[in-house]
């Protein structure tokens, strides 16, 4: 492999590397804006559907429009859309964005297309915090809103995995990282399950949250999640072109002095942040982080500079449609959104597993 000299000039010339094309993908740069436009339209449609569909109250798009223009506080439909549906749609979208982006970053950093956010047990770290808190076993946090408790739980778990896996060292052993995550995951899952059993009568309420749920989303959730999502997104974008380089091989990255450790630190921090955000507002949603990056890579190629925004939009769309489905399946009863993503995602994962080339 050729080793270009390490200086700013070569960094810039590397930036001009065209979109990496894989054999079999015929993505030309002309289609990209069109694809983004289509995806954005899909997102909007999903959002609108999520706002008004499948309600016992016969909400219409017109109601949605009126909420923006001519909000009438005495109109039930307007109130429902504005106080119940809107935060719910926003939370679903943001959780989807966070998880999808986290998945993309994980797959980029570990260079394993089948890495997923649920692998590290961060979701269950939040779950443990949630369970302990709702059972009254954490007396010192009763004043805090539950979403914050979950967030802190997730952050602590993420940091634990980070250090236990030795990601702070210069020479990391990827197996050690995953082992740390898996072991911690086992422990947390067991603990949470034990608490669910003990909760007995409260068991199903905890369970509902554990499978991923946006039914009772509130604006406080949106307020909490928004800044962190932006931060995570920005960080992801910041390291996106470096992730492209990483895809060429770790040794190449080292020789370019492109700061492998930096990428891992920033990327790791972003991943933890994104997952913590999603999990605290919607519970551990499975499969979104695994599947969405795959589909997006198929559609738009492997350039992370494009993938980061694309995956974000796609993750949001998926969750919005899942939200619609979660009401549609058993109308007028609500199913937890995580069940829908699991029922769609798991077979798709199986399909992927049987098709995947050795990459």
């Amino acid at each position, binding site marked *: 492999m050729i080793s270009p000299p390490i200086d700013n000039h070569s960094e810039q010339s590397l930036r001009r590397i065209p979109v990496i094309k894989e054999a079999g993908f015929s993505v030309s740069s002309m289609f990209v804006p069109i694809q983004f436009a289509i995806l954005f339209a899909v997102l909007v449609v999903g959002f609108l559907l999520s706002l008004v569909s499948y309600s016992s*109250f016969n909400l219409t798009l017109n109601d949605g429009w009126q909420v923006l223009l001519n909000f009438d506080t005495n109109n039930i439909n307007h109130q429902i859309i504005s*106080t119940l549906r809107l935060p719910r749609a926003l939370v679903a979208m943001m959780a989807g964005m966070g998880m999808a982006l986290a998945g993309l970053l994980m797959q980029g950093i570990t260079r394993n297309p089948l890495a997923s956010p649920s692998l590290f047990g961060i979701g269950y770290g939040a779950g443990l915090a949630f369970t302990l808190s*709702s059972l009254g076993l954490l007396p010192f946090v009763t004043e805090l809103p539950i979403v914050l408790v979950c967030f802190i739980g997730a952050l602590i778990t993420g940091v634990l995995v980070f250090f236990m896996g030795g990601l702070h060292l210069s020479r990391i052993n990827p197996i050690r990282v995953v082992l740390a995550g898996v072991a911690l995951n086992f422990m947390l899952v067991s603990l949470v399950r034990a608490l669910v059993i003990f909760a*007995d009568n409260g068991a199903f309420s905890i369970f*509902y*949250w554990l499978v991923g749920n946006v039914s009772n989303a509130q604006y406080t959730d949106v307020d909490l999640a928004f800044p962190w999502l932006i931060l995570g997104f920005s960080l992801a974008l910041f390291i996106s072109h470096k992730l492209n380089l990483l895809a060429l091989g770790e040794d190449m990255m080292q020789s370019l002095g492109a700061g492998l450790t930096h990428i891992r630190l920033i990327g790791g921090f972003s991943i933890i942040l994104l997952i913590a955000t999603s999990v605290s507002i919607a519970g551990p949603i499975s499969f979104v982080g695994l599947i969405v990056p795959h589909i997006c890579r198929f559609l738009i190629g492997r350039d992370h500079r494009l993938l980061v925004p694309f995956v974000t939009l796609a993750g949001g769309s998926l969750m919005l449609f899942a939200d619609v489905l979660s009401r549609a399946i058993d109308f007028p009863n*609500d199913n937890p959104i995580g069940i829908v993503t699991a029922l769609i995602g798991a077979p798709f994962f199986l399909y992927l597993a049987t098709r995947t080339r050795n990459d």
Partner: protein
Amino acid sequence: MFLNKMAALSLMLVSSLVFAKVSIQDEMGTFEIDTVPQRIVALEFSFVDALANLGVSPVGVADDGKATNVIPQIRNKVQPWTSVGSRYQPSLEAIAALKPDLIIADGGRSAETYQELLKIAPTVMLKSRGETYEENLISVAKIGEILGKKELINQVIKDHHKRMDDFAENIVSEQRFQFGVTNEKGLWIHGPKSYAGSVMERLGLSTSVPDERENAYIATTLEQLIKANPDVFLIGKYGDKTIIDVWQENPLWNLIEAVKNKKVTEVEPLLWSKNRGLIAAEIMAKELEIMVKQVK
């Protein structure tokens, strides 16, 4: 009243003298016993209620480690018992150490360990978890029979029905009642198939979700709650902060009939959900009566 008590007492004496072999149908088939059990272990709260009504104290109860899980009105009627652990995994050792001569077990939870329990003592499997009001009465009657107090339990049940009918007369209401449990993350309303729901139906009250005949507990969002629109809303809180606190901030909350009529009340989830039985049902009825009678 006194005459009734004398009648009951004499019936009890007579029936315990002349004890023939008792044979009843339980969840496992036919259960037979030919002596009056003296040391009884109960593996669910509803059985303790039944025993309390018969004036019998169990020697052991699976109370999830806390005797206070059984409501005081029941505890006051029986002697203190030894805990045998949790309801989902009672300690077979602890049960054996008590040397019981009858174990009343929940068919839903203990089916796997039926053989093990049989090694310790004669075991009767009755329905408890997920039971409705009517099903509970059947179990109570069976327990009475097993203890050789068939006449007594029939009398007790008859008295109970009379009291419930009295309550029903006083609680005449066209309004729709709804009970639910809530925590920080959600609300689960108990439909007509749940115990609380079936008690309310017994009292002639209508529920706000009459079409829900499948599931006992239904996860409910604020949107669905507004649609159900109960006239009287009883909330069992698990924890200090619940989602109701959040929903109360929402202007839509005031659209619910129960809120408008100021008929939103907190009730004890332990009573309304965990402890099931005659005593519990009557206390629930009393609370409902108070609620209905309250002037706006």
